[in-house]
Structure formats: structure tokens, C-alpha cells
């Protein structure tokens, strides 16, 4: 291949104290197999900077160059609070580097190596944050494909950042690692079965990796070991991970269900989006327990043999576009005005919600109602206390949703306290990666028309998702 190897030794260009394209190099902070990292500063940029310099030139692996090119392409395109900001780059042929925000925090890897015993709550929390960070990539049509503890930074406040996009895929840019001869590039313990056979376009691969990490934090063990051969890597196509509850009794059934579902060998059997994974981690009651949650013993020899034979014909599931997965398992919000007395509108909203829920079997409905605030001075009666008022609204929401006859895992109810109802609804939709907001507009509201109208306009203008206005 036409990669030049006569690039000037980068060591001569990048040294502490030198200035490259305005970046004043500080000390080298890390030297790895593929790249060196330098701290740096630049006038006009008021955040700590990191310069990543690929190990190129003679005797250096070709991968480091492709990885550099891939990372440059993808990091430059990404905008996410969970990804270091891209700050510039140098010419590939003369002085290759990527400048990015130097994120504080330590790799999750450090904690694992120290032998830290994670509490169940910590695992749930990190898992949910990880799912959120991954979703922010998927929403932009990017897939990380190398999610592992080494590439996850967590700072003092618990904020999580994903780093190293050298193996990532972005469907809006050429995939330089496509059709790579070596299959299964990535870190052996964490890559998904479909990555083992060379599929690079399935966002659910990241879900599998999150499952491995949660499993590792819970049990201290790797679900499929750390194989060094192709045969060993293929094992995850048929083997079932040893049930985490058999290693650590206190793990709740629902959490075992979630982790093992992430580790399903067929991508179609896992959670279909990172948002969904985050939702179940934050709302255990919505987890449907299956046989996975009951497992206490590893599969018998015969069961494994059967699965092995099935895996001989392993076909990766078709990969949906990353940003579309959330649309197949959408979260819909019904904003319900509990003070509303328009029966026609109520019925029409219920029908609309029902139809939408029927169209997407994996969808969920969140019914919300907003209240202006609860009284500081509470009355004596239950209906006048804060909790009483909230409960009263909850009952009305449940009443509203009754005709939909939804199983509990597909519906939840929230009463939001807010002075500005519209802003709060928009914020809630953002926080939960909602795909749709359903609101009703009645013609039968002579007095309050104006404020309701402005609040609807605000939702339509500011919502991060589609807004469905139901009219009578």
C-alpha cells in the first residue's frame, strides 16, 4: 500500500518547549504503542490541551497511521459533552498531530486494576452514564467500537468521557478500516461477536462492550476471558457468560437480566439502543425478567454443544443506522393537562397514543403533567400537602392511561414541578432522549388560550424531537 515511510521522525518535531502551529508543547504525558501524548497550551485557548502524535515513520505499525487518520476524521466531526473537543491538527505528511481538549479524570481501567470492588449502585450509575455517552455518539451516526475501561475517563465529579476514536466508524465518512484483512480488531475481552467477523457498522456492538464492562465491574471477571486466538474470540458467538449472580449473590435479578441481555451473541437480541439501556438502568421496574435473570449455573455441556453447532453458521444481524436505532425503540412523551376537561380531546389523544404505541412494539410512553409548584405552608388535609398534590396528579395520569392497557414496563408517570411548563417538558424530553412529544390542543379553552398557545409554540420550537399536536 502506498503509505510513505519517509516521514520525518516525529520525535524531532515534537519535543517539550517547541512550538508547533502555535501550540507550545509541555511535557510528554504518555507514550503508547500507537501514539505519544503531550500536554500543550495555545494563546486564545483557555482549556488544557493534549497533543496526540502518531508513531509514524520507519519501523512503526501501519495501524497507528490509519488509526490516527480515523480518529482525526471522526473526532473532528463529533460534538458531545462526553468526547474531548477537537482543537486542530497538523499536516499528515510533515507534522501529524491532533490537538484536543485535555480532559481531567482517570481511566476506569485504573480503578479495575487497583482491584476496586464496585458497589452495585456504582455499577448501575457508571453503566447508565456510559450508555448516555455512547448514545451521544450514536445520535451522530458514529460508533465507538473500542469501548473498554482504558478508553473511559471518569473525573472527580463522576463525569464520564470517551476517548480514542482510532477504531471508530462514522457513517458519514469513508471507513478506512473497512474490509481490513485482519478480522476482529479491537480489544479481545470487549469486542462484540459481529466485530469478530469484521462487521463495523453495528451500533449495538457498543452495547455489547458496555455489557462486558458492567459484568467486569460486578464480578471482577471477564465474561468471555481475554482470548488471543481467532478460535478463542469466536467463542462469544455461542458461549453463554457465567451468570454474574453465581459469582456475586447480592446482584439483583434485574441487573443480571440487563447485563446478560447486553451480552447476547445476536445483536438483535440485545437492547437496541443505548438510550433504552440507560432507561432500564435508571428504572429497574421497567425491566422484564426472563430466563436470563434466573440463571444460576453455567450451561451444561450438551447445551453448549448445541449452541456451538448453531454458531457454526453465525450470521451477524443486519445493522441499522446508528442514529436510527432510537427511532425503532422510541420513547414517547404524552404531555397531559390534568386540568383539561375536554372529553373529545382526551379521547383523541388516547387514540393517537395507542396507535403510535402499536406501530412500535418496543416503544415506551411517559405520561407527564406539570404543576406550578407545591405550597410551602402545608394544609392539614392530605390533598393540600406537597406529596398529596403530586399523588393526586399521578392518579389522574394513571386514569388517563388506563384505556391504553399497557404493561407496566412500557409506561411510566411523572409529575414535574415547574414555573415554566414548556421549558420543563422540553428539558425532560432532552434528558430522556425522547423521540416524540404528544400534546393536545383544544378549541374549547376560551379564557386560557393565550398562555397555552405560547407554551405550545415554545415546545414546538425548542423540542429536541418531533412534536405531535393532537387536535379535536
Amino acid at each position: 500500500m502506498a503509505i510513505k515511510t519517509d516521514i520525518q521522525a516525529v520525535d524531532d518535531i515534537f519535543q517539550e518547549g517547541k512550538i508547533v502551529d502555535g501550540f507550545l508543547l509541555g511535557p510528554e504525558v504518555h507514550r503508547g504503542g500507537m501514539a505519544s501524548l503531550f500536554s500543550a497550551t495555545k494563546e486564545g485557548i483557555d482549556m488544557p490541551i493534549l497533543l496526540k502524535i502518531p508513531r509514524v515513520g520507519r519501523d512503526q505499525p501501519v495501524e497507528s497511521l490509519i488509526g490516527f487518520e480515523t480518529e482525526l476524521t471522526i473526532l473532528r466531526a463529533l460534538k458531545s459533552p462526553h468526547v474531548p473537543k477537537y482543537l486542530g491538527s497538523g499536516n499528515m505528511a510533515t507534522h501529524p498531530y491532533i490537538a484536543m481538549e485535555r480532559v481531567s479524570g482517570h481511566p476506569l481501567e485504573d480503578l479495575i486494576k487497583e482491584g476496586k470492588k464496585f458497589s452495585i449502585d456504582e455499577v448501575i450509575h457508571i453503566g447508565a452514564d456510559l450508555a448516555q455517552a455512547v448514545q451521544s455518539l450514536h445520535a451522530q451516526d458514529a460508533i465507538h467500537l473500542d469501548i473498554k475501561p482504558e478508553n473511559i475517563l471518569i473525573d472527580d465529579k463522576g463525569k464520564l468521557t470517551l476517548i480514542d476514536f482510532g477504531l471508530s466508524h462514522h457513517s458519514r465518512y469513508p471507513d478506512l478500516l473497512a474490509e481490513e484483512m485482519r478480522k476482529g480488531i479491537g480489544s479481545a475481552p470487549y469486542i462484540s461477536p459481529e466485530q469478530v467477523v469484521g462487521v463495523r457498522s453495528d451500533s449495538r456492538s457498543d452495547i455489547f462492550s458496555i455489557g462486558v464492562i458492567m459484568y467486569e465491574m460486578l464480578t471482577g471477571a471477564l465474561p468471555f476471558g481475554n482470548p488471543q486466538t481467532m478460535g478463542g474470540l469466536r467463542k462469544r458467538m455461542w458461549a453463554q457468560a457465567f451468570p454474574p449472580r453465581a459469582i456475586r449473590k447480592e446482584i439483583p435479578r434485574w441487573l443480571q437480566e440487563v447485563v446478560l441481555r447486553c451480552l447476547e451473541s445476536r445483536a438483535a437480541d440485545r437492547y437496541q439502543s443505548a438510550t433504552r439501556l440507560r432507561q432500564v438502568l435508571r428504572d429497574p421496574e421497567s425491566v422484564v425478567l426472563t430466563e436470563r435473570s434466573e440463571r444460576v449455573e453455567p450451561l451444561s455441556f450438551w447445551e453448549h454443544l448445541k449452541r456451538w453447532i448453531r454458531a457454526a453458521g453465525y450470521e451477524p444481524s443486519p445493522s441499522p443506522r446508528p442514529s436510527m436505532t432510537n427511532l425503532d425503540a422510541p420513547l414517547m412523551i404524552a404531555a397531559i393537562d390534568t386540568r383539561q376537561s375536554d372529553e373529545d380531546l382526551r379521547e383523541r389523544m388516547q387514540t393517537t397514543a395507542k396507535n403510535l404505541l402499536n406501530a412500535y412494539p418496543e416503544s415506551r410512553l411517559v405520561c407527564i403533567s406539570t404543576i406550578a409548584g407545591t405550597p410551602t405552608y402545608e394544609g392539614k388535609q392530605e390533598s393540600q400537602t406537597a406529596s398529596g398534590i403530586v399523588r393526586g396528579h399521578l392518579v389522574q395520569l394513571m386514569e388517563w392511561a388506563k384505556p391504553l392497557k399497557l404493561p407496566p414496563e412500557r409506561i411510566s408517570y411523572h409529575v414535574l414541578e415547574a414555573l415554566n411548563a414548556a421549558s420543563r417538558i422540553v428539558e425532560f424530553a432532552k434528558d430522556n432522549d425522547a423521540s416524540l412529544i404528544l400534546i393536545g390542543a383544544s378549541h374549547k379553552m376560551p379564557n386560557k388560550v393565550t398562555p397555552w398557545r405560547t407554551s405550545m409554540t415554545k415546545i414546538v420550537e425548542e423540542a429536541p424531537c418531533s412534536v405531535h399536536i393532537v387536535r379535536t
Partner: protein
Amino acid sequence: MARAKELGVTRMVFLGDIVGYNADPCALIDRIGELVASNKAIAVIGNHDEAVFKDYRNRMNANANAAIEWTKSQLSASQVQFLKDLPLIVNEENICFTHASAHNPEEWNYITDSMSAWLCAQSSGKIYTFVGHSHEQALFYQSAVGKLIRFAPHPGDEVPVMRHRQWVSVVGSLGQPRDGNPEACFAVFEPESEVLTFHRIEYDQFTAAEKVRRAGLPEDLANRLITGN
């Protein structure tokens, strides 16, 4: 052209088929001729341009033939000479421009898959090869194993195209893009920053189609401008 100026384009390249589909062949040749003469543009010849002065009757469909006959009747001798003088291929230090493929350019082979793109890149030997001919935009890039892989670019996205691998860009056509979107295709290459951006731009395809109709050219040619098929 106005949009290209807005984007800060310093030099334009016309990748052939200047005439043969449209109703303004004379104006186009004069305009492009001026730009070429003042070194602001380069142009290469396309098969439809060649058809004006070579016998192509058995190589094109009835609509294309009818359009060529009409075009011939419009052009002056010097305009035909301009087409005759157009080069088949232009090679610069790192870049090759040609209408169809750098591999046997006179055969007007289409670049549609890895193999045809690979032949083209091998023949040109340049880092960047730009072609037209196929009406649909595509970027072929050299993978780790040397094979060229097809990528469907997203309009407006800046794609880094670094010099250590070969790239074959099919920039698409200004009319009749054949992908169901009537917007005109072009691409902007910035050699210094090694960035390539494919563009789609709205133009008045209805007026263009009306002119085609008024010129008495086949109805199908006018319709394709509007539907983008």
C-alpha cells in the same frame, strides 16, 4: 459558478460533456472557453463532446443522437474546434482529471465499482483522480489492503483526503444527476488542507428543461432534468 466563487474556489475544472444534453451549447462553450483562455479553468473532453465531430450514431441512444444532431446545427466552426482541441486527460503533479476513467480514457468506461476505480487509480498513478461521466457522486478510497472502496458522500461534509492513499472522485453531473434529486452536483477540493467536499446545489431546472423543450430536443431529456432520474 456563483456558488463556487462564494466557496472561495480559485480554479474550476470541467470534466467533460459540456454539450449534448442542454439547450445552451454555444453560450456554455464561449463561457468555458473564456475561463480556459484566461487560465481560470481547465476542461477535458467528454463522449458527448466528441460525438459532435465523430460518428457516434451507433454508440448512443436515440435521444442522445437527436440532441447531438441539434447541437451540431447550433455550433459554429470555431466552437466545434474548441471541443476538438480539448484534452482527453490532464495530469498534474498529484492530480489527474479526465471524463470517464484514467484507464483507457478514450473508451469511456464508467467507474462504478472497486475494480473499475482500481484500474483508474492504477493507470493515473496520481494521489487524486477526478472524473465525471457517471452522473452519481461517489468517492473511492484506498483501503488498508490496497483495494478501492466505494463511499457515498454526504453533501456538505468535509471529507479528509490524505495524501498517503489514493482517491478517485466521481463528482457527479450538473444536470440529470440520476439519483432522483434534481440538484446539480459538484465537488470542491482544497489541496492544502487535504479536504474534499461534495456539494449539491439547487438551480432552476424548470427553466433549463423549458429551454430544452423549446429547442425541440427530446421531451425525455427535459423531464430528466426535472425529476433528477
